């Protein structure tokens, strides 16, 4: 296409252009004019998807800091899916809550740019910048409903802790740079593999700080505290977006840094991450049990899912790496769909995101209830859904790496998590609605998006081969 440097960043460019376009559209639109701004985003994302597919298997490198390898592209495509679904779910929400569409879409797209950058970056500094791009957008998105104090509060907590943790992350970069003399992952990796094993405490400290930064973004215990508040405060669709996109991007970078550059120190980080993974799974599921707000509950659930993903990281074998990719995709689609469902049910003055709001949903919204149920079952890891294949893949990796205890723990916590997913199902199907106010009719576009996600979930659950093969192929190129 263009120069190799540019080729690698074409997906990002597409999305950036879409973001700029939506800002421009907002600026030039009339007072009461309605523009399909979301459509611009979808076009941009489609461009990103197409260019990613074209870049497939070419392992293009751009500016020495962007690696458009299959791994990154897989995540990019996942992010495209996240973006498309987010936009589809957003349309009715924006209108309902009179959120400025132009800025909203621009921020969503910018943050997707940041995510893509993070997923493909091969330089710690670029990862940091990307992290900040996506973080700042997400902070703002969290607080996008200015009439909603909870959203602002959540956003601030997220922001403050995010800034706090980026400082640690940055400190980690500093130490890495200090020890290895570079921030490029290839150089870092080369230096580290030449080092005798872990004689240098500086490396350990660097690793620890970097770990904190990533762990924060993927809300691993004990760096997870912001998650429930931010997820609860944000509009449901934003929560869906950030619980999936941010996690996917952060995991991609996490895996890239720890599985390539810091691979030689695996013996040092693996036990720490294993413990973190265990704590994350336990806390996410256990605390989720007591939640009565659906968004908050799913927040804890997504903490737990972060734990499962970490298990794949700990396993650190080929299966594990591919499993992370597959799980990310499965989890993203599923979680986004779940939050999308919540978003669709909301009304202008009422979020309808408390558990009791779901009582008897089966009677008023049978299709929505059914689709939500599939999402929840997938989150719980029950066949025949994507979630099941994902869990199976992840724990398969753990078992083959000898981490039986993690696999067992993961399995048991997933049983506990099923308990709270089932509570929603119980509400929807087995309880009668107490109050008279029935949630509003849901928008057709949102339902279509939900149905699309469900099809994807079931497809991934029943015929995962194709995607599994792609995931497996993705990791072979870089690690």
């Amino acid at each position, binding site marked *: 296409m263009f120069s190799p440097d540019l080729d690698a960043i074409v997906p990002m460019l597409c999305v950036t252009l879409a973001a700029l376009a939506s800002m421009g559209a907002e600026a030039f639109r009339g007072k009461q004019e309605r523009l399909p701004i979301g459509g611009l985003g979808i076009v941009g994302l489609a461009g990103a998807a197409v260019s990613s597919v074209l870049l497939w298997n070419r392992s293009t490198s751009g500016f020495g800091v962007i690696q458009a390898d299959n791994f990154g592209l897989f995540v990019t495509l996942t992010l495209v899916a996240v973006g498309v679904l987010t936009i589809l779910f957003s349309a009715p929400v924006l209108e309902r809550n009179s959120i400025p569409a132009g800025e909203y879409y621009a921020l969503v797209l910018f943050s997707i740019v940041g995510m893509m950058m993070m997923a493909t970056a091969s330089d710690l500094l670029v990862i940091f910048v990307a992290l900040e791009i996506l973080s700042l957008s997400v902070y703002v998105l969290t607080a996008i409903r200015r009439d909603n104090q909870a959203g602002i509060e959540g956003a601030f907590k997220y922001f403050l802790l995010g800034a706090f943790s980026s400082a640690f992350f940055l400190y980690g970069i500093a130490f890495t740079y200090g020890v290895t003399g570079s921030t490029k992952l290839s150089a870092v990796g080369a230096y580290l593999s030449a080092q005798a094993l872990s004689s240098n405490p500086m490396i350990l*400290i660097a690793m620890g700080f970097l770990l904190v930064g990533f762990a924060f973004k993927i809300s691993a215990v*004990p*760096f997870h505290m*912001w998650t429930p508040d931010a997820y609860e405060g944000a509009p449901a669709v934003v929560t869906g977006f950030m619980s999936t996109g941010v996690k996917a991007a952060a995991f991609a970078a996490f895996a890239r840094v720890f599985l390539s550059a810091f691979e030689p120190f695996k013996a040092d980080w693996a036990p*720490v991450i294993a413990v973190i993974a265990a704590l994350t799974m336990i806390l996410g599921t*256990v605390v989720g049990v007591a*939640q009565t707000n659906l968004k908050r509950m799913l927040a804890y659930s997504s903490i737990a899912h972060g734990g499962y993903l970490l298990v794949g990281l700990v396993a650190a074998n080929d299966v594990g790496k591919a499993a992370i990719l597959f799980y990310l995709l499965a989890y993203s689609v599923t979680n986004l769909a779940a939050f999308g469902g919540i978003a669709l049910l909301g009304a202008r003055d009422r979020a309808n995101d408390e558990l009791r709001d779901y009582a008897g949903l089966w009677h008023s919204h049978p299709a929505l209830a059914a689709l939500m149920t599939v999402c929840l079952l997938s989150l719980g890891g029950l066949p025949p859904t994507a979630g099941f294949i994902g869990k199976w893949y992840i724990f398969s990796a753990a078992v083959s790496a000898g981490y039986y205890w993690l696999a067992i723990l993961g399995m048991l916590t997933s049983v506990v998590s099923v*308990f709270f997913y089932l509570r929603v199902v119980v509400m929807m199907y087995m309880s009668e609605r107490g109050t008279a106010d029935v949630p509003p009719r849901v928008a057709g576009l949102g339902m279509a998006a939900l149905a699309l996600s469900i099809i994807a979930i079931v497809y991934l659950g029943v015929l995962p081969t194709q995607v599994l093969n792609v995931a497996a192929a993705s990791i072979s190129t870089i690690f």
Partner: protein
Amino acid sequence: MISLIPLIPLLPFAGFVVNSTLGKRLPKSVSGGLASLVMVVSFLISAYLVWQLSQLAPDERLLTNTIYRWIASGELRLDVTFLIDPLSAVMLLVITGIGSLIHIYSTAYMHDEVDGEFARYFSYLNLFAAFMLVLVLGSSFPVLFVGWEGVGLCSYLLIGFWFKKKSAADAGKKAFVVNRIGDYAFLLGMFALFAMFGTLEVRGVAEKVAAMPPEAGFGLLSLATLLLFIGATGKSAQIPLYVWLPDAMEGPTPVSALIHAATMVTAGVYMIGRNAVLFSHTPDTMTIVAVIGAATALMAGTIGLVQNDIKRVLAYSTVSQLGYMFLAMGVGAFGAGIFHLYTHAFFKACLFLGSGAVIHALHGEQDIRNMGGLRKELPITYWTFLIGSIAIAGVPPLAGFFSKDEILFETLAHSHTVLWVIGIITSFLTATYMFRLVFLTFHGERRHDAPAPADAHGHAAGHGHDAHGHGAHGGHLHDAPPAMALALIVLAIGSVAAGWVGIPHAIGGSNGLHAWLEPSFTVAGAATAGEAAEPGLAGESEAATEGLERTLMVFSSVVGLLGIAVAFGIWIKRRDIAAAWARSLAPIHTLLLNKYYVDELYDATVVTPVQAVSREGLWRGVDVGIIDGAVNGVATIVDAGSMVLRRLQTGSVRAYAGSLFIGVVLMLGYYLWR
């Protein structure tokens, strides 16, 4: 050629099928007639087959017919095979013969039931006959067991025939459950045999065991036979599982006659006879059998002495006579045991049917204290009942005399002196209580008028005699109607003559039955082993034995007559003696009247504690409390943990930062200090 053997049980079974499905729509004459007809035909076929059998040489007297393979699993190969040998031939004739009579009797006795119930009764009765025939025809333990449990089921159904009455339903259940205890042992016995011999064919086991020497001491084989015997104690109402039989009298009287006197309860005896070779290889078990038999005979005899319900007296008498049979089996006198079984079938059926006629006439009255003086009004009943009583008392030359005498002789001949003494005492008791019954029922003065129709309705509702009020006024009673009379008379004749097939050599008889049965108790080709197993009178001379036998015959006749005399003395001449004794020996009398409190004992030691432990201990305690408590406890713990852990999420951003910071410090600490 199609064998006739399967027809014997199949005919009654067909009767069952017809009556149970179409019964409601058939008139009584058809359903009852059909049921009786199939039994008669079955009897005729049996008779024909037995005649065929008798035409064979004694060693070859065996007709078998394999119908199909029932269960096949590994080395276990179970065929449904029917077998007629001399032993089962006797049983066949008894079952179908007496069974036919009782069916006929029942058509009259049960006539007051409504159509559906009437048909139901006969369907059960036919089903019983079918299973009983399977029991005696079965050539292997499991097939025998099918019949064994099947008759138990029918017994359950028939005891509880008047299901509206709680006592009847209770009695039925009790019978079934107690039998199940025996069946449990029986099953274990079967398993033990299979484990030892790899087959469950009765003859297969016999052949293998015949090749072995008798077991010294109490080993596996003894255990197996003991288990089988425990099964028999359930079915045949021996100590300690006899408790169901007296209660079983809640059923219609013909049922008591057929099932609980003539046939089913003798299944245990038959089973031991069928496995004579096996049992004779386990002397220890044999001793136990004999002792249990004797003890049961004595105990039931003592209880029978004071009971006031006409059927209960007969029931205890049955238990007692069954004890005799087991005594015979236990001492190795299999022929004598079966002989007694056979004669007992006649006179006890006769007695039960007689009592049924009495009850029928009195519209459900069963208490002998309310009877008396029925001799004149119920002559047929009286005379047949009397014959039966003389027979059971062991007065020559009636049936009971020969069989009982043979048992006592064999007991002594096998040097079981103590058991012999018990046998003699029981014999005396038998004569006494039987004649007490006769005298109190038929002699003396009427102590009770037949209840008025209205009264009858309430009193005997459960018995279904309520519609029978037509001739009940003015104390005039109806003797047995023709169908009942026929059965009574035939059985009375049997009670007189049945023993004549087994007149011992000692008094010039041929003891034909003994000879006829002999092949069933030995294994062809292994006769020596069987012979050796019988510690008999090999050393003594034939003459001396016969002398002893003759002496004993006289002695036991005298004992029987003495018993009758005592009964005459007490209950005819000096009625006050009985009451006086009852007063002076009040504790014993109460003890006997309450059947040694065995039911209460079982209730207190087994039934109640098991119920209580199950309810409070296992269900509410272990199940709901501990196990489910643990399960729910896990949920509670998770829930509590959740409530605690979520408190960490204080909402304060500084606390969140603290958590993050602690994580950092701990992680670095781990790296630096490890």
